């Protein structure tokens, strides 16, 4: 496939606001996970909460979009000059030629949770102030971001659970390839809510301690929240770029189970193979793999098998969820930005919090940070429903 450059990118998550904060935490091995104090949640677990999300309301002209998910989106858009980079592209292409393709799992459903606690005891009605279209609806945050950035090109929300904001790269590439857009803002936003906290707990997937991906005694996931964005365009038309490009993507389905991945990682391996094929690269061309690595028993085990099947045992790999937690529909973009930072800074992160590597694993899992040149990264994102996506980012001169 024709590579697309990332003209700009940014991430905001439990590690802080913007790329410098995220990189500093990665380099300094500082986790963003903390005991869960979110609302009145009575679960003994750690979460990756973004500090200060509720401090700044959404801008006045978009007040109808007020909710935590859109506040988090706005906070992220304000970092790393991202809004200005998009504005420059808008002046060049026109707003109708720039697509906005984002991922989420739960959008602004926290707003609906609040409304359900405030139902009229007689009629059961939701409070009159409740707005569905601009909060809970899956498209709400795409619409918010599109309006915030003053863009009117093709737009949609991809919602395929935890692969959502990796799959946006594929959809955006297709829109640009078929000429429906000149550039695309891709990304993802997912914010803490009780639906996911109690939901994952019901499946016994939530760990008590900060998550320990690939650990022999891993005890489950730490849920996080995050937002991240990237602007994709063709290199020959870009005014400038970050030195990072999208080289390939691969999507697949497990066809196995709704909430358990294929135990041998067959669907995951297929996504990685398709990403390599679309990039026209051999496995040896990948310097580092950013794993999905949720720290659930089955995910990490099947992912180890899938990596071994595709890459053998030499390619360094790790999960960064010990830093950020699992940001669900925003995991793909969070780890895409982390991959870009790894390439830029020559960093291969280890699995933070992980003490003893699962002895059954045979892929080359890093437990501590390594400083070495990184030219190409493959990043995995796998979701419920057996939805798998892998993307390849690399250095671009």
């Amino acid at each position, binding site marked *: 496939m024709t590579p697309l450059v990332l003209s700009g990118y940014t991430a905001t998550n439990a590690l802080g606001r913007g790329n410098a904060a995220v990189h500093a935490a990665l380099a300094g091995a500082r986790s963003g996970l903390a005991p869960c104090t979110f609302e009145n949640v009575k679960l003994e677990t750690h979460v990756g909460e973004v500090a200060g999300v509720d401090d700044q309301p959404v801008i006045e002209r978009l007040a109808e979009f007020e909710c935590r998910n859109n506040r988090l989106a706005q906070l992220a858009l304000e970092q790393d000059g991202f809004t200005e980079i998009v504005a420059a592209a808008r002046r060049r292409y026109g707003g109708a030629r720039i697509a906005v393709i984002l991922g989420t799992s739960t959008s602004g459903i926290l707003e609906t949770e609040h409304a359900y606690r405030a139902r009229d005891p007689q009629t059961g009605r939701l409070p009159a102030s409740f707005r569905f279209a601009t909060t809970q609806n899956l498209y709400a945050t795409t619409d918010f971001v599109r309006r915030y950035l003053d863009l009117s090109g093709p737009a949609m929300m*991809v919602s395929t659970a935890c692969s959502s904001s990796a799959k946006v790269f594929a959809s955006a590439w297709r829109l640009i390839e078929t000429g*429906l857009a000149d550039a695309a803002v891709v990304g993802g936003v997912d914010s803490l809510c009780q639906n996911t906290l109690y939901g994952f707990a*019901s499946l016994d997937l939530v760990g008590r301690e900060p998550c320990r991906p690939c650990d022999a005694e891993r005890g489950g996931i730490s849920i996080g929240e995050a937002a991240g964005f990237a602007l994709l365009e063709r290199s020959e038309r870009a005014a400038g770029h970050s030195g990072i490009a999208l080289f390939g993507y691969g999507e697949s389905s497990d066809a196995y189970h709704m909430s358990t991945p294929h135990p041998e990682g067959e669907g995951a391996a297929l996504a990685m193979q398709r990403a390599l094929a679309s990039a026209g690269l051999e496995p040896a061309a990948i310097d580092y793999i950013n794993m999905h690595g949720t720290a659930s028993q089955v995910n990490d085990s099947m992912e180890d098998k899938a990596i071994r099947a595709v890459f053998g045992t030499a390619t360094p790999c790790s999960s960064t969820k010990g830093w950020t937690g699992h940001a669900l529909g925003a995991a793909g973009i969070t780890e895409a930005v982390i991959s870009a930072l790894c390439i830029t800074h020559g960093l291969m992160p280890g699995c933070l919090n992980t003490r003893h590597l699962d002895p059954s694993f045979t892929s080359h899992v890093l437990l501590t940070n390594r400083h070495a040149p990184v030219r190409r990264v493959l990043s995995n994102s796998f979701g419920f429903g057996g939805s798998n996506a892998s993307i390849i980012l690399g250095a671009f001169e």
Partner: protein
Amino acid sequence: MIGAWIDGIGLFAPGLVGWEQARAVLAGAQPYVPAPAPKLAPQLLAADVRRRTTDHIRLAVEVGAEAIRHAGVEAAPLWSVFSSSDGDGAISHNICEEVARETPEVSPTRFHNSVNNAPAGYWCMAVGSRAPSTSIAAFDASFAAGLIEACTQVLAEQAGVLYVIHDTPMPEPLNSARPMTGIFGAAFVLASQRSARSLARVTLAIEPRVETMSRLPDAALDGMRTGNAAARALPLLAALARGAAAVLTFPYVHSQALRVTLEPA
């Protein structure tokens, strides 16, 4: 120009149960008689699996299976796109009710069905497909947005694609906040090359929104179109039923419209 060949169709809505029955109504040969939609029981899902699903999931599988049968193609190799404005409102309602309690107890089955790609997950399991599958949303533009995603897959990936658009009304109190009337599901098997199966070709263009969107002459059917986001697909289905060339306009995002040019095969 971006476009695709339509090789098969599935449809399920009140008074429009299956493409064969609905075609005569949508072509104007038979009157539209509003009637409650029958119970959804897609045979593609094993009985024990079907019991664990919701109407929102069953609707997608029902219309998807009909489109595959109509096209006479194998389902597993097809890529798939599932589009829905509001997702599974029955599940959202149930979990929001549960987490409003003092000690929430969310059902694990409901939770894994709560992901927006649950219909896609059940579909891929039922037909044994490891092909890429995407689930998307764009509020009232969900039909147009899904058709665009599906056609970019056909063109850029040279893939055969199953495109499913479906929405089910949410239970109260959510339906008052986002009213929808009646369920609506439709599916299309799309191909990059013309074949003996091809019914028509669609070509897409995004353009500044025009004053009027395509409508249906029957007032009740046009009410269905405006009463359910997925039913915005009806003008395309009506044109396919008539089997004549047509230029149609569908609401798309922001100030845009999607123009669809339909040419019978």
